[in-house]
């Protein structure tokens, strides 16, 4: 998938050609020195290794912007665990749920809850790889000196009176949001909306937790940006 590869390259070689001015000022690997090709080659080899399933490298967060939509995304991969968070504009979310029978009040609450499209994949080696479990109740959002959990779909659905949200709308919401708990066997992936529960336009850090063989793994993605609510600006 093109959007997986391209941003990684742009991070390893930000706005430079291969072997450009990145190493200027460094003795080893300075442009024109004998070490330069070796260092660039090592960068490439590390890049390739990070893309191969089953090899575990230090977690790397890649931030990129979709050229067509202007929406930003945050991509993290560590071991077999891969997650991508893609911004959704509040208006996108409004349109999606209004089309599924939600009233304006409820849609407004959903749309301004910092919704991201979330994709999680187990890229561990096929066959011999390990299962990964993800429990969103363990993820933590840090913003403005406060810590909170993300908004989960079960209590959200339960909070709506029967009369305000119909059965078909509840069903769409349930399947559109990311599962609160899921096991990913090697090769499995899932996608869905996650609500981080902070205001549009705000910035937050996210602590992620996933498990293999019962062991918890943790990573942090810093400075995730909730897209602004253009509707409210108008």
């Amino acid at each position: 998938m093109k959007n997986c590869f391209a941003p990684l390259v742009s991070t390893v070689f930000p706005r430079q050609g291969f072997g450009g001015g990145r190493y200027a000022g460094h003795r080893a690997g300075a442009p024109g020195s004998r070490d330069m090709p070796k260092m660039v080659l090592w960068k490439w080899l590390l890049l390739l290794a990070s893309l191969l399933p089953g090899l575990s490298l230090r977690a790397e967060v890649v931030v990129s912007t979709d050229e067509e939509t202007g929406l930003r995304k945050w991509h993290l991969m560590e071991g077999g665990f891969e997650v991508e968070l893609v911004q959704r504009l509040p208006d996108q979310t409004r349109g999606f749920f209004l089309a599924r029978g939600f009233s304006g009040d409820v849609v407004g609450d959903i749309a301004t809850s910092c919704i991201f499209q979330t994709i999680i994949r187990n890229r561990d080696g096929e066959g011999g790889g390990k299962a990964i479990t993800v429990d969103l109740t363990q993820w933590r959002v840090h913003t403005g000196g406060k810590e909170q959990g993300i908004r989960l779909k079960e209590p959200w659905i339960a909070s709506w009176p029967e009369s305000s949200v119909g059965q078909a709308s509840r069903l769409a919401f349930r399947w559109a949001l990311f599962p609160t708990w899921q096991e990913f066997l090697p090769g499995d992936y899932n996608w869905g909306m996650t609500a981080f529960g902070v205001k549009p336009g705000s910035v937050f850090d996210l602590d992620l937790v996933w498990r293999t063989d019962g062991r918890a793994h943790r990573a942090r993605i810093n400075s995730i940006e909730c897209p602004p609510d253009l509707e409210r600006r108008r």
Partner: protein
Amino acid sequence: MIPMRLRATLFAVALLAGGAWAGDQTLTPVPGAVPAPDFELPDTDGRMHRLSAYRGKTVILNFWATWCPPCREEIPSMNRAWRQLRDAEVVILAVDVGEDEDTIFVFTADYPADFPLLLDRDGTVIGEWPVKGLPTTFVIAPDGTIAYRAIGGRAWDGPGILEVVRALRGQRQGAE
């Protein structure tokens, strides 16, 4: 500097490795002989389909919705797969979750599907299957047990998947 040829080679290898994100065209075996939960649902023409009525055939059972991007992405490949498999005693049933005939009718103008599209309007059937997200697909052996599952989209007309589905008939029948 790295020679141009080496750069090109590295770039091509990187592209191939990056393609693994979308290219893991595998089905996950379901261990044991788990019976497929039976159901009866109407298709978009009002014709009823009972899963157990397809006993003796391999069934590819797909749960999807029109608003789900990976579902939309895999439907064309599923249609191509169906053309190659329908003479091999393989049935594809795609269960739409929570939508109506009109929505699906509009959808099929852009994404034609020649196999039955079933309507699970109230989500009762999907609730009885181990589904966490859309799309999820199960391959049901001719003996009515779940042989494979796929969470997330697949290219269903890929040679690897077609081979697995075709081979299932012989394997499970041999075990019966």
